[in-house]
């Protein structure tokens, strides 16, 4: 893919003590998704935090916001895809998921958000074997 890492020296935080925020234990698993470029989780890199996931069980809607480590992060769409795939696994299929970068955290915020929430583009991307492999590595490498 790319020749060098986009963000070679990320700031790494210690894992927070987990407080069960919602009854569904699956909510916590999202934070363990591995960053596409580093062997750290999205939570450790402050890409996701407790406040960034909102679940409305009545309407069946989920809003997740994440903060890419740097303003021009081109991995933002990959992170967004990973989040979507993980959430699809954790929640019943009728839940609607909206994924956004946190306001002001990315130079192409609108463009990234648009792509992440275009269901046709997401479906086509996940049919791309290379992209699918990268997503799977981010999601499952911790289990190896």
């Amino acid at each position, binding site marked *: 893919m790319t020749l060098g890492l986009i963000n070679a020296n990320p700031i790494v935080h210690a894992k927070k003590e987990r407080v069960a925020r919602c009854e569904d234990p699956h909510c916590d698993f999202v934070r363990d998704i591995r960053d596409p470029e580093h062997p750290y989780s999205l939570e450790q890199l402050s890409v996701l935090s407790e406040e960034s996931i909102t679940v409305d069980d009545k309407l069946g809607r989920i809003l997740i916001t994440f903060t890419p480590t740097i303003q021009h992060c081109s991995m933002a769409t990959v992170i967004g895809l990973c989040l979507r795939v993980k959430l699809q696994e954790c929640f019943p299929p009728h839940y609607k998921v909206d994924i956004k970068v946190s306001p002001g955290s990315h130079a192409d915020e609108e463009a990234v958000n648009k792509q992440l929430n275009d*269901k*046709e*583009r997401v479906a086509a991307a996940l049919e791309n074997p290379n992209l699918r492999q990268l997503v799977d590595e981010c999601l499952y490498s911790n289990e190896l």
Partner: protein
Amino acid sequence: MDFDDEGSNFELKEIQTLSGHTDRVWSLAWNPATGTDDAQPVIASCSGDKTVRIWERSALTRSWDCKAVLEETHTRTVRSCTWSPSGKLLATASFDATTAIWENVGGDFQCVSTLEGHENEVKSVSWNASESLLATCSRDKTVWIWEVMPGNEFECASVLQGHTQDVKMIKWHPTMDILFSCSYDNTIKVWAEDDTGDWHCIQTIVSGHSSTVWAISFNAGGDKMVTCSDDLTLKVWEADIEGMRSGNNQVLWKHLSTLSGYHDRTIFSVHWSREGIIASGAADDAIRFFVESKDSVVDGPSYRLLLKKEKAHDMDVNVVQWSPGENRVMASASDDGTIKIWELATSSN
């Protein structure tokens, strides 16, 4: 048709649910040659499961059955399908970057041609009224026009560039050889052929929708069209049809009306019935119906909501299509993997 006078209680009755696809159903098309006294209605549907299914309603039981599964051809999601006006051929557009042409040979559907050329996912395919041209569009930002030659041969006549993003849908005007495209770039483009046989863009509607335009549909007369978008609105446009008929390529489509405040999630599909009822399918699992309102005080017609069917499906509604044969019969398809046949009925007061 004046819907304000009819018994004001409309309901959408579910006739049947067609199951079989093993992934989301992206689109469907009624065979235009069926649904008459002689020929039972036929629907083609296409899915993320890479197959196309042909469904037919039994004359005896009035129940829909799956007659054929067209598989082992497309290697990725089949995104769109459409019958030729005569009903003899079926075109299917796929994320595998090809468009397949199928013919019903004695009850067996065979792939008689494969159109290649797009660089990536083909999103939509459309036949013109005389069946002499086929158009396809893709995430590669281009629209291709193909000439239909004898013996199921297809020749690329033009590659139209202009959209700056993914082209979501293309649709030929119902009577004239004018092509319309809508895109992720938020615009709608109108394409026509000039005297030298070259195709080019004669109009770009830029200040219309503020997000991806997903679909286009024309009214029966062909002088109006409705578009739907990720910006949560439907927009109605009109043009001088007589001017268009006399070959004037300078005729422009003008904004007539915007229907906003009715949808709170992306509208994926819109279809205008022969009678004038606009149906929409959206990401909130609902199907809505709109008609022209005679109560408008502003100049020009406005539209009102006739009925909202919540939870029409368990997941996003990807397509709504009125039956070409029977009055007020409609089909819809969803991420939930099903197709539903409906009848828009009035409950007598």
